[in-house]
């Protein structure tokens, strides 16, 4: 089998314009921005409602979500959008020959260490996205697109904190 060479990434400014057009399309078509963490929330609410309905009924976080979003949490805009993200990322991976199973990490650290920090980072991001009422996509990017004050605060807090902590986690990356 011939070895396909991995294609280079797109020019970042061009990619940015295209990303902006996707955000614009979401607003013009659906009157809302993009998101990611909201779909995770839908999946968690749906899971808890299925596995432990009495528990979901008793807890404000789950039952208030049901009241606001109807009977099936998975039948939501963000869930369909996130399914699309996975398909879109996969298609891009195919055409650029980047489909490969791997743990990407700095050669100076082990895969195990990378995965431990990936898990810890995911937990924090999941938790933080609930306080922030959205993540980098929903709160920062899409919020800024509609000039939301909260969007600018989220952006500054996310990137500002990551910059301030970068020194302490430098061995993970450089």
């Amino acid at each position, binding site marked *: 089998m011939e070895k396909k060479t991995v294609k280079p*990434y*797109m020019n970042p400014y061009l990619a940015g314009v295209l*990303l902006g057009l996707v955000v614009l399309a979401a607003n013009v078509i659906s009157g809302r921005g*993009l998101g990611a963490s909201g779909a995770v929330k839908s999946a968690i609410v749906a899971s808890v409602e299925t596995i432990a309905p009495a528990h979901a009924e008793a807890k404000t976080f789950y039952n208030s979500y049901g009241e606001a979003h109807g009977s099936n949490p998975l039948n939501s805009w963000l869930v369909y959008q996130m399914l699309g993200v996975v398909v879109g990322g996969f298609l891009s991976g195919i055409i650029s020959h980047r489909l490969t199973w791997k743990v990407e990490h700095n050669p100076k650290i082990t895969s195990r260490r990378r995965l431990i920090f990936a898990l*810890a980072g995911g937990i924090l991001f*999941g938790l933080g996205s609930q306080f922030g009422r959205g993540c980098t996509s929903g709160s920062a990017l899409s919020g800024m697109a509609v000039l939301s004050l909260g969007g600018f605060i989220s952006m500054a807090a996310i990137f500002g904190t990551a910059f301030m902590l970068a020194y302490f986690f430098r061995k993970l990356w450089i």
Partner: protein
Amino acid sequence: MGPLVVYEVITENTNLFLAFFIGIGFGFVLEQAGFSSSRKLAGMFYGYDTVVLKVFFTGAITAMLGLLFFSLFGWVDLSLIYVNETFVHSAILGGVVMGAGFIMGGFCPGTSFCGAAIGKIDAWVFIIGLFIGVFIFGEGYSLWEDVYKAGFLGSPRISEYFGISEGLTVLLVIIAAAFMFWGGEWAEKKFPREDY
């Protein structure tokens, strides 16, 4: 006239169907930009690769300008578009926790799904973390409900908050971004990394 779903140009089901295609565009662009790679994303915070800065701010500016012009042409009614609510305390707290997650995990939620789509195992593990994190928030909700709901300002636009026009706000963001792009290009030369 948009938003199409609000004006009932399209039905609610069509809206959900189109969400899938909007997602495809989102995922495709993220992957093409290199956002499926945690080392590329983290490069932002060490200066060796500032693609996050460039894509994020070019994207935000394009969307801002697009919405302003579409509004000017009467193609979209901005008053009907969702503006994120502002809860100052939890926005800052959440942002700080997310920032820590970003530098440790190397992904944000959207990019982790994108990385997972092309087989990055670290992205899959990050996603497992996301689920755990959201679940912890849900289980402990009564403990932090007060913080979560404090500092509510409604849904102000930053332009309204500072009493300047939307056009001027966008212009200021563009000027700020131009300086940041210049800084990013400078940093990539100053802190180069061999291919990773």
